[in-house]
């Protein structure tokens, strides 16, 4: 990706020409131009280069994040007859089909969990991840009118996609809770892990979408690769099948796919028929954090040039 490394000097002026810049990602190697402000308190004039500064700036712009997420939610079900019911229909019908296809016809095991609960609890986080990554990867491009007209921390766009998806997730969770009650599942303390898992799931989705969104600005290939990639991702993720189907020695491989450990943990948190797979969750969490940090760094290193190559 570092193809835009250039140091040829096209500029005639001594001194200025020494600061060669191309596309922004690589401009950092050069003495970076600085935009400074003395009004650190302001939400608009402030410029923050340090990481803590960026976080403070994000905090300043939290309302914009809220409004963008709110816009996404509002717009998603505008002018639909069923409205927010779609948030239930999608996982519910997919669950029914999975139950019939993979449960009845293919007789895949379900770790002694009632099949509807098994599939639904896997589908819920999976649908969140796939929807967020799909819309997050497009978030910069589809908001290019904003990127070229106003300033705000660019990461807000994929973040808004991640936040707005949580609404559907919460609605789906209510349905899941109803299923759990219906089947009289013996819920134990691991249910408390649920919020932590939601955070991990959000981080993972946001991490992947930050990376893809930034890449998408430069390489439109991403647009075609994402739907395809997500399909493949589903097959290596224990949504349709339980991790226990995989030989124990190889299960850690499955957990390297961070969605794997997280989804497996989601399932165990509500249907504790087996012990919680802590090691898998540990591996997946570590990978999630790594993905998030690396993606965030890639994003912040390239974001300066978004408006130029949009």
């Amino acid at each position, binding site marked *: 990706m570092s193809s835009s490394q250039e140091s040829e000097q*096209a500029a005639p002026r001594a001194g200025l020409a020494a600061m060669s810049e191309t596309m922004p990602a690589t401009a950092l190697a050069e003495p970076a131009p600085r935009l400074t*402000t*003395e009004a650190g308190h302001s939400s608009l004039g402030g410029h923050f280069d340090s990481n803590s500064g960026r976080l403070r700036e994000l905090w300043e712009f939290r309302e914009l994040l809220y409004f963008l997420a709110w*816009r996404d939610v509002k717009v998603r079900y505008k*002018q639909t007859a069923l409205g927010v019911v779609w948030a239930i229909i999608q996982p519910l019908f997919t669950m029914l089909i999975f139950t019939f296809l993979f449960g009845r016809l293919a007789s895949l095991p379900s770790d002694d969990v009632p099949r509807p609960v098994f599939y639904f609890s896997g589908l819920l986080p999976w649908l969140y991840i796939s929807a967020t990554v799909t819309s997050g990867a497009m978030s910069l491009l589809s908001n290019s009118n904003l990127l070229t*007209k*106003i300033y705000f921390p660019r990461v807000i766009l994929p973040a808004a996609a991640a936040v707005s998806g949580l609404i559907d997730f919460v609605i789906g969770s209510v349905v899941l809770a109803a299923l759990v009650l219906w089947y009289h599942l013996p819920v134990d303390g691991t249910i408390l892990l649920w919020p932590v898992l939601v955070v991990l799931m959000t981080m993972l989705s946001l991490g992947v979408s930050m990376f893809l969104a930034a890449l998408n600005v430069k*390489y439109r*290939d991403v647009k075609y690769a994402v739907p395809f990639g997500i399909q493949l991702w589903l097959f290596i993720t224990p949504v349709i099948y339980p991790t226990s189907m995989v030989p124990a020695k190889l299960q850690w491989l499955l957990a390297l796919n961070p969605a794997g450990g997280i989804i497996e943990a989601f399932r165990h948190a509500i249907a504790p028929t087996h012990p919680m797979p802590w090691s898998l969750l540990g591996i997946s969490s570590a990978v999630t954090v790594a993905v998030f940090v690396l993606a965030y760094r890639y994003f912040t290193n390239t974001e300066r040039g978004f408006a130029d*190559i949009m």
Partner: protein
Amino acid sequence: MNAVVNSIEIDCLCKRFQLGALQGRNLQLREQLLQSLRNPFRRRRAGEWLWALRDVSFSVPRGEVVGIIGRNGAGKSTLLKILSRITYPTSGNIRVRGRVAALLEVGTGFHEELTGRENVYLNGSMLGMKRREIDTHFDAIVDFSGMGQFIDTPIKRYSSGMRLRLGFAVAAHLDPDILIVDEVLAVGDAAFQRKCISAMENLRGGNRTVLFVSHNMAAVENLCSRAVWIETGQVRMDGPARDVMKAYLGTYGGESGTGPGLTFEGRQGNGDIQFTRVEYLSPEGSPCGVVRSGEELLVRLHFHVNREVLYPSFGFRLFTRMGTLLTETNGKHHRLLVQKVEPGDGYLDMHIRNLNLIPERYSFSFWVTSETGTPVYDGDVRSILDIEAADVYGSGRVPESRHGVLYFPQKWRLVTDLDERQSR
């Protein structure tokens, strides 16, 4: 030592773009991979660089209203985009003190499906307003926009004018220390533009620093005390708005072919007298590159006499672009009785006091005949007259070609029954 606080300090700012590959095209990963496979050790060609800004330095004291002028592609917009942090400079320093609001567009981020009310909140938060601020100003914003009854209608049902109104209404309630405005006044209908101008004028009051980019010279003249003229990415001139604009209009006029030149297509006459060239001059006799509404104009028509002629009669017609005759005058109207012209050169000065023309392209047609009209010595020699906009009503609202061809200097006053009763 310096008592003036600068809101903006720009120091040796440069910005360059690479032309070609990366711009506006869908860059395929494959191309890049192929390229690096073919030539693993060669770096990509330096390509061609476009210096959008080169070595730009100036500072703006707090409270000053500065107009940025320049032709298309001069770098004005790049400068504004850097100041509003949408894009980053290649080199150089910028210091900005205070809260910046950049209006590069009216109604940024409006979403078709959302209602006016929802879009006010969305747009406001994009421009940096807090939700509480929007709550406080909401009624005033709706009032300003005049969209009261449509505020809960999705804006996809709005006309473009209504959207603009709503967008500007939000912008007018921003309270930044530094306001950056790009061409927003170039749109909207007359009544609304007037509202915008007065909103802008109110901004001038406080300690607010305003940077205003526009092609509308009259608006710049009306609003700004200082102007910076950017040309090919560099500051060409920086000073009092009036002076900079004068210089700018002078140069611009010359380049764009506004300057007079005679065209001889369709020329008539026997050639005893021939027009050679025409000059548009200020009353003092210096050439004016651009002729603006309401200005005085001295038309100096040069001619060459080939053969002695008795009692020639000069005149001109002025046509609109569409070919409508606006006026025709000849020497007799001005008691210009020429007994005789002898072979050689000469010129005729026609001093027009008040060009009450609306900005458009007009054309002169000059002629010279004998006293009786025949024979024609020279006829229908044309010269283009481009009239540029000026703030002729002193309101910042410039008449445009859709307002007709003429304007009249005028003053308005409204009297109602109420006033009558009060004065009694």
